[in-house]
């Protein structure tokens, strides 16, 4: 039986706590009385994933069995989530592969000749062939790549269609192949509550015109938080768009959930609470610490990015999107929810080496903000763990380091936009459209492996709520110039950061450390 998440109060006997520090790790001693929030232990995975998938497809929620929807001569499209999920990438076989193989088996049995598979990228970068092969598996890749298995291109005017406006006046666009199909099957992997549901189609197969309707400062500032869909304006907008899509095309959703076993056995100490560390875990920590202290960043990165997470399937549901997503969210919350009493003056977060937008690339400073203040800060329900005006302390080396292939627009965003202002609203008004319509960024997004020109803006908006909510933001161990460019304060050690924070929150503040990853959702009372 997996232990639920826990909030531990630091006393004299509490061991130092692990902080992620980019491509490194640190042990830090927290002040007495500080709280450490731990995620629940990984749930037991389903013993026979294939059987569970077959069962879900045979008995879908509020929909007909998939088999009855497939017929000879139909136009079938299967869309699936890209490599931004899960993190770290899942050890083979990926659950999407298992689901798609079952679906394709059924399609083959029904004699469906016209079948296409589309990676629903939205405005993310195109994946490499090897990355796609990892997600879909050898069998699907060899059968369909590249003419029937390909990636969504949100900037191809021929490949996308405008569907209409929602009741709130939001534009909706969709990949042409999906719009013209008799049936679209969406295969999703939900790691956090933000994923899945209507958002999958409304974002993954849309263009900039459709996505900007909810990826904007106003919507994101009203999403408190976007990790809890009922309170998220972002999700409300996606639901409106999704409903319009469902009026246009028949969609069958398949959503999967995994447990939070995010690290392989070699890095098991990252998975465990410090009080559970064995002698072997301590040795592994020491070994990794020494390695990460001396190894060059590029080498460390290649080692870290080679890690594959041994996630286990905890749920698979198929059928009508709302019914399916409700079940999916329930399964996700079972895995990551932790009850936390009250807010805190200071919240500390170790920012790891990997976020959704830097798979096989360094985490550049803009993505550090997106990860720390966008994703990790927003893992809450009801209200943030940090009180309004409190201090958020992140640990990350925060180097001036960009991947020119994946993040060309991020470089200009950092050099040009952040040099002018860090205010999300002003950035949106002055710069977003220019970057989004830049022909060079558009070309790189379409033909290379670059994120869309508007993507760094979204990464920044993602953190808008946290920047507005926090009184001060301190990055421990960061490059001073870079941190100042981001508009934050820099500290050398955690103790220094606490001292600096006292100037904002007063003496003897309450401190809470969110021990992520593995991820947790703080249900704050």
């Amino acid at each position, binding site marked *: 039986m997996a232990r639920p998440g826990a909030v531990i109060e630091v006393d004299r006997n509490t061991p130092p706590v692990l902080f992620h520090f980019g491509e490194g790790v640190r042990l830090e001693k927290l002040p007495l009385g500080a709280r450490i929030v731990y995620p629940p232990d990984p749930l037991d995975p389903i013993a026979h994933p294939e059987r569970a998938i077959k069962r879900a497809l045979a008995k879908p929620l509020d929909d007909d069995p998939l088999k009855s929807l497939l017929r000879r001569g139909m136009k079938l499209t299967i869309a699936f989530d890209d490599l931004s999920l899960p993190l770290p990438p899942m050890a083979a076989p990926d659950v999407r592969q298992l689901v798609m193989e079952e679906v*394709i088996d059924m399609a083959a049995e029904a004699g469906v*000749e016209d079948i296409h598979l589309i990676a629903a990228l939205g405005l993310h970068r195109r994946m490499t062939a090897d990355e796609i092969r990892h997600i879909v598996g050898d069998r699907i890749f*060899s059968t*369909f790549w590249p003419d029937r298995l390909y990636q969504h291109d949100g900037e191809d005017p021929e490949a996308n269609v405008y569907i209409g406006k929602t009741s709130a006046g939001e534009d909706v666009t969709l990949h042409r192949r999906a719009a013209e199909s008799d049936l679209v099957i969406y295969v999703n992997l939900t790691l956090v509550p933000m994923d899945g549901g209507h958002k999958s189609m409304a974002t993954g197969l849309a263009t900039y015109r459709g996505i900007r309707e909810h990826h904007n400062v106003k919507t994101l500032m009203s999403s408190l938080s976007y990790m809890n869909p009922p309170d998220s304006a972002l999700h409300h907008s996606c639901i409106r768009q999704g409903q319009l899509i469902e009026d246009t095309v028949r969609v069958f959703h398949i959503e999967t959930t995994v447990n939070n076993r995010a690290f392989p056995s070699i890095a098991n100490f990252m998975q465990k609470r410090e009080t559970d560390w064995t002698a072997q875990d301590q040795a592994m920590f020491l070994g990794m610490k020494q390695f990460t202290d001396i190894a060059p960043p590029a080498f460390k990165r290649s080692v870290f990015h080679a890690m594959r997470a041994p996630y286990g399937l905890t749920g698979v549901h198929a059928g009508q999107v709302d019914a399916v997503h409700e079940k999916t969210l329930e399964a996700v919350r079972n895995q990551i929810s932790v009850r936390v009493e009250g807010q805190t003056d200071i919240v500390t977060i170790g920012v790891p080496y990997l976020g959704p937008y830097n798979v096989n690339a360094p985490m550049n400073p803009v993505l550090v903000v997106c990860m720390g203040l966008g994703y990790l800060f927003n893992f809450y329900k009801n209200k943030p763990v940090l009180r309004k005006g409190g201090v958020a302390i992140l640990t990350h080396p925060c180097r001036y380091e960009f991947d020119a292939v994946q993040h060309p627009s991020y470089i200009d965003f950092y050099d040009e936009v952040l040099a002018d202002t860090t205010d999300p609203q002003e950035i949106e008004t002055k710069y977003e459209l220019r970057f989004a319509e830049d022909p060079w960024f558009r070309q790189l997004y379409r033909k290379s492996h670059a994120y869309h020109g508007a993507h760094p803006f979204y990464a920044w908006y993602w953190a808008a709520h946290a920047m507005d909510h926090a009184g001060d933001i301190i990055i421990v161990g960061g490059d001073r110039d870079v941190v100042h460019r981001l508009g934050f304060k820099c500290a050398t050690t955690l103790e220094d950061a606490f001292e600096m924070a006292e100037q904002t929150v007063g003496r003897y503040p309450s401190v809470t450390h969110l021990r992520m990853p593995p991820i947790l959702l703080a249900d704050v009372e």
Partner: protein
Amino acid sequence: MTWYSGEGFSRLTGAVGDAVRDVRQVRRGWHWDSPRPRTWPEQGSVVPARASDLSWARQEPVRTIRFLIQRGLLLPFTEAMAHPKVEGREWVRDLERPVIFAANHSSHADTSLILHALGDRARDRTVVAAAADYWFKRPLLGNIVSLFLNTFPFSRTGGAQAQLHSSSQLLKSGWNLVLFPEGSRSPDGRIHEFKAGVGHLANETGTPVVPLHIRGAYQIMPKGQSLPLPGPVRVRIGKPMSPQPDEGSRQFTARVEKAVRALALEPAQPDIQGSWIERWRLMKPRELPYEESTEPVQAVETTTPPVKAGRKERPLSTARALPAPPEKPDGRARSAAAPPRASRPKHP
């Protein structure tokens, strides 16, 4: 007792001394370092040795040596130079009977690219027809190439019946055959007219032909270039084709040529490469016989091996049946036709 004392050491030094003495004796007797003595009678005309079919290259332990050479040297080199993208490998994954691979030919790199594309199981059972007048002009070169690539001499200049006989013997012995029906490397990289031999051989032996198209090999090593340059390559493998009952050799050759040309086109050609449903079924993973088995190991050993699942759809099942392999008169022929050893990896 030290290693250099005693009887063993004396015997070893004695053997080395004998060998040195023998060499010295021959050197003196046959005047290695001086002209041929005038007193010796004139040399008679040399009787040429009977042309070898290089059967030694298809026997153990040469097959194991070649397996190691290919896995350790040839395939990594090919991968590094060409990083070949292979499409349609599923058609040759589980070949249950010999086939003829008919490919376009624009470079010396073609053979290693084809072998790379085939996968371990099919590669281990494949011989390559190499031009006798080019590769086997110098016997040493021919033997080395055979060791590396399992080639056999294929005459381009005549003796069609004899050639057909030796090739069909190989097919009947269980070997797949790589043929380049153009006869020679293309001087300009384009596909040239196929010679009728491939259709003739397929018709005579009832063997299916697998069309292959190699794109990019000409850029790596065109005719006249002695060193390869790196470049991207795509190898596309088509659906096996069998001659129709009333189809002549020339018509069948024309059909094979058309298939290879079609494979060169973009995008994929379902008529030649098969529909996705056919390919999908072919790639179904084989179920392991011991999976979920509750029987003890001993019992499994004494029962007949279970039938492998997923073998309903075989690409070659509809092809004309081969005549039964002839009885092997001697042990040598039998070993040449030996099936792949169980120790060899079966899953490419």
